[in-house]
């Protein structure tokens, strides 16, 4: 009976609330002896619900103190929820914070051994896992030194290697990927993608929006213990960065675009031309900037093309045509986001630019650029492109 495909839920979190009693010296006694019903509480999580489908990572963005880590601990069972229900389907590995569990005199090897033991791995399973941890963490000879001599980055390496050594089905990760050097971070990403491609699921809690875009297909923003947004990660990132305004600060009254260019579909290697009409309202030196970014859930975020300097549009009031031309578009097939903005130099700081108007994914009105073609087609370099105005 494998005809009907029901999306399997890996983590289900329904109506979870969690409050902490605000305990001081006086109320500690009362609490201990059962008279603490009137102890003031702080509600860290308020009625949080989300599901993580099997084979997906869900990102949770939030500012410091928004309740992200508390939520992760409740999901992992280290904290008990006051109300609500959490169900986890599969073997769980959790990294809540880079706090030490146990004695810092332990060597890296003993420490890894201990974490694995606590997670219930048998002696026969631990041997090869320790070897894998030693190898993946790249700690080398330092693996035999006490962990109290480790730097924060080394500790993070040991932690991540140990937490992902087993083939778990569900991962709970807290900020872990923002620690460690770039080399190790990229290894972590590879390993996580590998696990996801084998059907692992998880929750990634972070305040690093690009990490969410790299790994997650769905993201939630939590603020003051509530989920304030659920949806695609790029929108979550925009909301997280700029809040409800959802637009970068623009100075109006100097220049504006008359209409928004349509979304574009183009074959890789063809010439890309985008035209837009702009109107200059006051006599200032208006320029245009153009960026193409790749922003793909599960792939990441990167700038694909960027005009290096501001292309002048005009100085006098009037209607101008802004034309963007990228000959033989040097991009892999995929979905990209194009941003086009009108800027003027800042009166006080000439190197800074003042945004006047524009389109971009960060403003919620980006131009989607679909590049079609053979994924193994290769690219023609060098490429040049120009932005001109008339």
């Amino acid at each position: 009976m494998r005809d009907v495909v029901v999306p399997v839920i890996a983590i289900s979190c329904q109506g979870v609330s969690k409050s902490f009693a605000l305990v001081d010296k006086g109320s500690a006694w009362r609490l201990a002896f059962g008279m603490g019903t009137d102890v003031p509480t702080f509600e860290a999580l308020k009625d949080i619900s989300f599901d993580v489908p099997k084979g997906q990572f869900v990102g949770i963005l939030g500012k410091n103190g928004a309740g992200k880590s508390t939520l992760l601990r409740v999901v992992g069972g280290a904290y008990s929820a006051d109300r609500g229900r959490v169900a986890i389907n599969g073997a769980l590995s959790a990294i809540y914070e880079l706090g030490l569990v146990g004695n810092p005199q332990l060597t890296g090897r003993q420490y890894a051994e201990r974490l694995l033991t606590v997670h219930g791995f048998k002696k026969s399973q631990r041997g090869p896992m320790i070897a894998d941890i030693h190898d993946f963490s790249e700690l080398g000879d330092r693996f035999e030194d006490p962990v109290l001599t480790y730097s924060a980055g080394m500790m993070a390496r040991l932690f991540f290697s140990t937490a992902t050594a087993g083939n778990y089905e569900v991962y709970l990760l807290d900020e872990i990927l923002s620690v460690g050097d770039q080399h190790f971070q990229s290894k972590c990403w590879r390993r996580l993608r590998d696990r996801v491609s084998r059907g692992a699921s998880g929750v990634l809690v972070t305040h690093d929006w690009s990490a969410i875009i790299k790994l997650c297909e769905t993201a939630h923003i939590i603020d003051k213990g509530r989920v304030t947004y659920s949806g695609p990660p790029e929108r979550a990132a925009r909301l997280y960065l700029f809040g409800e305004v959802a637009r970068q600060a623009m100075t109006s009254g100097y220049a504006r675009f008359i209409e928004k260019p349509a979304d574009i579909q183009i074959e890789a290697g063809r010439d890309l031309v985008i035209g837009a009409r702009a109107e200059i309202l006051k006599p200032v030196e208006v320029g245009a900037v153009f960026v193409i970014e790749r922003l793909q859930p599960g792939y990441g975020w990167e700038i694909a093309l960027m005009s290096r300097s501001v292309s002048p549009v005009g100085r006098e009031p009037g209607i101008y045509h802004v034309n963007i031309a990228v000959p033989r578009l040097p991009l892999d097939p995929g979905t990209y986001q194009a941003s086009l903005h009108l800027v003027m130099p800042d009166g006080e700081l000439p190197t800074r630019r003042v945004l006047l108007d524009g389109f971009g994914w960060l403003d919620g009105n980006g131009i989607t650029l679909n590049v079609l073609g053979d994924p193994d087609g290769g690219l023609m370099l060098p490429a040049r492109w120009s932005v001109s105005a008339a």
Partner: protein
Amino acid sequence: MNIMGFDRRDMLMLSNLFRMALTDRYLGSALGTVWAFLSPLMLLGIFCFVFTFVFPNRMAGATSTLTFVIWLFSGYGPWLSISEGLSNGTASVVGSAGIVKNIAFKSELLPVVGALLGLVPLAVSFVLIALLQLVNGTLPQPAMLILPLVVLLQLVFVAGLGMFLGALNVFVRDTALILPNLLTILLFASPIFYALTAYPAFAQSVLVFNPFYVIAECYRDPILNGRLPPLWMLAYLTICASLSLTGGLLWFRRLKNFFDTRL
């Protein structure tokens, strides 16, 4: 299978935690695990010296120095085990804050681990007593077969108290600081260094129900006299242990929901 809310996985966790606690306690010191044996040995040696050379007339109804030393060890050894278990149990939750916050497991196992750590000084005392009895020419008695039951009752009793103190210590950190003094008072209030008959008559009738004294007696009777401890003592100890464990568990499970605010 589920006993008092614990299942097989918890038992596995218990054994892992016990091994972790054992290594943690003695790791980083030069002699390592040797201290686990040396420190009870030294304490026993000190008391042995004090009561045989400094106050020789305080010997409690013993015929020779050797028999007194055996009498002393068979009461003081279990006490060392109890006090070790209680202090470890009290410090267990706060001391393992990292595990409590980061790993989903039943934290009521921690005071149990604390009580189990008391087995180390107990084992050392048993070995010493066996050696001394060998020197004395006494053969092991069949009544000693009751000792595992006594050890079990003692562990359950101490684990229950440890749950109470360990959870309390999360909220009132003074608990762990007062405990050593309390233990000293308790030691001298229990007929462990002296025979019960050394106390005034009115005190005797109360002290005979001191669980710590009852535990010591349950060890002494089989070891020294080769006879089973009085049945009422075993029954009384069983009741004490059950009450301590159920009370401790209830107390601990009520408070552990608030641990996250204090750790």
